[in-house]
């Protein structure tokens, strides 16, 4: 495991797309997780955004995020299919490797897992000719799918080679904290069925309410190694590593303080965090010393 296995997520950084890409590359990262809005909201337009990403030389490991996709019917389903097709085309245009879908929070969505699996099978089919993968992530406040174990059950039911679970450590840890559960089921997921791993931590042990969980998720995540769940995260990383997962590890860190700091500072914290994560792995090969300015 080395720095090439890790990426930043643009959600963590302040500033323009170009400055975020620069900051990540300058800290030594070779890949990035983008949000669709990074591209479509670019002040110089979509094509300019695509060009900036191309020029950065960074590999785009995933596009965030398709919301409220699964479990719908009739016109709502058709509307969401058209939306997800647009998102897949966006992935193709920017050279992203996968589209991330988070579990629905919609009150209109069915909780029937057969229905959800069929919808995921459909997006996986749409992704196939484009050469894309799809990651399905259980939001801990998802309406029906709010736990990674259920997202894994549904991914197995859908049974498509380019569909896997996306593991977000925040949701796993927050669920365990709120519900008093553990994440041992994680060890049962084969590495090739994990589509993507997003890592972050937070700063308190007790999550008392679902509202507090959402608030923390959106504003107060920190990089792995900076929070209070390092022991749990370390165990989680080793479990995923032992599963045979050899994909990317992205830091999805929503943090109101980080977006008030210079991007270069935050990117270096991300680099320190990558070293911390690699140190938890039994396949560690990242050097302990930081080689600053390697992409300056």
């Amino acid at each position, binding site marked *: 495991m080395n720095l090439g296995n890790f990426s930043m997520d643009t959600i963590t950084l302040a500033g323009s797309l170009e400055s975020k890409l620069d900051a990540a590359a300058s800290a030594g990262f070779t890949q990035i997780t983008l949000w669709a809005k990074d591209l479509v909201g670019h002040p110089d337009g979509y094509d300019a955004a695509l060009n900036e990403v191309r020029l950065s030389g960074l590999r785009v490991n995933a596009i965030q995020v398709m919301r409220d996709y699964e479990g719908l019917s009739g016109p709502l389903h058709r509307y969401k299919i058209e939306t997800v*097709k647009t998102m897949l085309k966006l992935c193709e245009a920017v050279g992203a490797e996968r589209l991330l879908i988070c579990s629905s929070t919609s009150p209109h969505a069915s909780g029937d897992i057969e229905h959800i699996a069929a919808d995921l*099978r459909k997006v*996986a*089919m749409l992704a*196939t*000719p484009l*050469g894309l993968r799809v990651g399905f992530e259980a939001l801990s406040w998802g309406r029906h799918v709010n736990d990674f174990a259920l997202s894994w059950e549904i991914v197995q039911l859908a049974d*498509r*080679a380019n569909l896997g679970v996306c593991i977000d450590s925040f949701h796993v840890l927050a669920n365990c904290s709120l519900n008093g559960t553990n994440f041992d089921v994680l060890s049962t997921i084969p590495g090739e069925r994990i589509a993507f791993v997003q890592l972050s931590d937070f700063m308190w042990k007790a999550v008392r309410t679902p509202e507090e969980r959402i608030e923390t998720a959106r504003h107060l995540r920190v990089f792995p190694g900076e929070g209070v769940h390092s022991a749990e995260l370390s165990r989680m990383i080793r479990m995923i590593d032992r599963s045979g997962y050899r994909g990317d590890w992205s830091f999805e860190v929503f943090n109101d303080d980080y977006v008030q700091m210079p991007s270069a500072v935050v990117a270096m914290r991300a680099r320190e965090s990558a070293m911390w994560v690699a140190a938890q792995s039994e396949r560690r090969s990242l050097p302990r010393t930081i080689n600053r300015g390697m992409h300056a």
Partner: protein
Amino acid sequence: MNKSVSTLNPLGIDGIEYVEYATTEPQSFGAALERLGFIAVARHRSREIVLYRAGGMNIIVNADPDVAGNSDEGSGAPRLKAFALRVRDAATAYTHCIDKGAWPITPRVGAMELNIPGVSGVGDTVIYFVDRYQEFSIYDVDFKKLPSANDANPSIQGMHFFGIVQSIDESRTKEWIDFYEELFGFSVLPQGQYFGVLPKGTLLESPCHKFYLQLVEPPEQAAVLAWQEKLSRVGFGAADIPALVKALTARGVTFIESDSVHTSDRGAVTYLGGTSFEFVKSHLGASR
């Protein structure tokens, strides 16, 4: 139709109606097809497209600038652009595939031209659905018969469509198997069961048992090659390969002999008209 048959062959697939090549050099490619026993039988009413036929096989040679002019390879070499499946009902087949997550293609239909429904396949290729292949012909609408055309042009040595080879990216076999299984009802043949002289990749059998698809991942040294996902080759079947090779040799076709490919009773390969064709000893009969 009982349920089990419907499940095994949900679209009522009944073989390949045609394959389509795009090329900016239609004359030289047409001449190559003629060496293989095809003859030009009809010309499209509004676009530069010619229909070639041999026995029950139809090959469309599309030189329309909008289609043939955007070759990624930057040459006029023919590219396999599409294949059309004979199905029970084209509209139903199309809806079935769209409901399961296939991408619809944007039809390019001119006035009084037939809209053939299709979905996106690998790369920029299309898989069409044709249901008018028995009493009526799709070609009667869009094509004008050439005066010299001879309807009775049997294929040489019973040559027939045997399969299509599709090159795919590394580790994508399972994804493409899912694609063909889910949409069309193809099934995977056991590893090790191959036909012809290029035994590699994964073979899928059509639900009608009339043709095969071969999925081929890049060879190990492909990092330095310009490998891309596409339909790469048509395979023709014949019961007697030596007799077919002899007949084609007499027509000026030469066959590849290399360290890895040899003409044998099992099959042969030729490079002709800017592309390769494979010939396979076949247990399948010539259709129609």
